[in-house]
């Protein structure tokens, strides 16, 4: 005996709510999505899931190219984010991609604060065949940035990627430091940096929204790298970020090796979310 249609639908909404909430989509966006689908008056369970997937894909689709296509070299990428999310490792992965394309890549060690941060980036630079610009520990990150961009221009490098120290978005003085690094790049040449990528940890919950918002206020973001998707976290907060702040997800980090970086694709992301 099958349950009456009304009751089945109630359980379906609860099931969908649970899938979305446990994926870190957050209560507000989840409620919006459920109400939107309910208003579409779809009748079967399959149609509900299809409607939800379609609505999610609509939100997540961003028409930008992964990498800027019209720019004057070098392509300068500033990488930012809170502590431990995967910035340094993601930079290694990006550098690897550009190196495989035959580009000359320079990495700038602008994390002059954390223990062994420069050593860590140095190991990666060697592994992917990139050059490293670094100063003494405790030196001014903006000075490293300035040196790096001068070197990149002088050496006609194809790509310059700047690694910065992890910082919680609520620390105003550290956000000011980031502003200063960006300003220094702009002073070297007004169109720099062409890319500013925020790295988010896929295991982070609702705080990722606050991170994106406050980093965006300090330095205009051109994209997000969502790292650690090889775990069990779904990274659903990306939906809320896309919906409310419009910063596009460009890359997905799927492991600790330098090849573990995938291009973001809305369809694949949404179906993984709803699994």
């Amino acid at each position, binding site marked *: 005996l099958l349950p009456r249609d009304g009751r089945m639908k109630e359980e379906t909404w609860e099931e969908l709510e*649970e899938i979305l*909430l*446990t*994926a*870190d989509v*957050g*209560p*507000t966006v989840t409620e919006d999505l459920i109400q939107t689908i309910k208003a579409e008056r779809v009748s079967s369970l399959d149609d509900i899931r299809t409607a939800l997937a379609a609505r999610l894909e609509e939100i997540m689709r961003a028409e930008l190219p992964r990498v800027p296509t019209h720019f004057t070299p070098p392509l300068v990428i500033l990488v930012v984010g*809170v*502590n*431990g*999310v*995967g910035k340094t490792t993601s930079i290694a992965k990006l550098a690897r991609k550009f190196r495989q394309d035959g580009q000359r890549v320079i990495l700038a060690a602008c994390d002059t*604060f*954390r*223990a*062994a941060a420069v*050593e*860590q980036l*140095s*190991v*990666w630079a060697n592994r992917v065949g990139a050059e490293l610009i670094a100063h003494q520990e405790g030196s001014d990150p903006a000075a490293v940035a300035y040196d790096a961009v001068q070197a990149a221009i002088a050496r006609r490098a194809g790509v310059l990627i700047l690694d910065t120290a992890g910082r*919680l*978005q*609520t620390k105003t003085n550290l956000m000011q430091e980031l502003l200063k690094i960006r300003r220094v790049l702009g002073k070297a040449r007004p169109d720099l940096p062409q890319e500013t990528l925020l790295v988010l*940890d*896929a*295991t*982070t*919950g*609702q*705080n*990722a929204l*606050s991170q994106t918002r406050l980093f965006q206020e300090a330095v205009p973001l051109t994209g997000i790298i969502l790292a*650690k998707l*090889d*775990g*069990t*976290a779904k990274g659903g*907060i990306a939906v809320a970020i896309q919906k409310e702040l419009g910063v596009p997800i460009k890359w997905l980090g799927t492991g*600790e090796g330098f090849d573990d970086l995938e291009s973001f694709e809305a369809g694949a992301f949404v179906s993984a979310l709803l699994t």
Partner: protein
Amino acid sequence: SLADKIQAALKRLRTKGKLSEADIKAALRQVRLALLEADVNFRVVKNFIGQVQEKAVGQEVLSSLTPAQQVVKIVQEELISLLGGGTSQLERSQDALNIYMIVGLQGAGKTTTAAKLARLLAKEGRRPLLVAADIYRPAAIEQLQILGEKIQTPVFAMGKQNPVAISRAAAEKARREGYDTVLIDTAGRLHIDDDMMTELIEIKAAVQPTETLLVLDALTGQDAVNAAGEFEAKLGLTGCILTKLDGDARGGAALSVRAVTGVPIKLIGVGESIEALQTFHPERLATRILG
């Protein structure tokens, strides 16, 4: 504040003697929203709301509080109790060697926390030895060595040898040379990586630690129950250290971990500097979670 939001939800409340079921339901919808926004796990929220509902229905409205304030008071009491009720001390033995194994997901703050803990215990008069058992992350050993130097605590390293062998050798060195505390910094790993979880199980079997501490990022969302649950099931944990509470994360992951694994939260990381380690107080986190 949460009390204001509940008050707004209860604005149709006529002053009666008892909290009615309808009033409680309206109030708890606000509480549920607050907990989900604070990253408390979906299932944990469901059970928690059920518990509070039972406690609240039929209670006399206290003359000193508004019904909204009263509901918040019940919620806070339940939260504090669920978070362990009080502080929880790190296990320490006066006469045996104390070995602390530090584990967790990638980037949670293990290496930094290991050094913070070494400094804290040294200040208490202990003689700690830090152990560099992360042989995978580039410059992981250097990172621990630099931190050890900062606090004048020796760091035992054997380069990229088997972490089980490193841990065993460190314990032997500690016994020979009179260290009373050993802190093993392990590599970050996924709870679903069987080989890496096996490595932890082998380290644990080899050194029989006094404590197996899960270092968890306070920014963690719904995934906290998966990670903590698996670490507890596969390895066994005796305590949890919540890091990065100096930010504005509400820290609901703490409730999820405690509710699902029963593991007590003992300490919290409140900054990048080596002194930024404090005792965990459940009432402070309860207030923070409720926003």
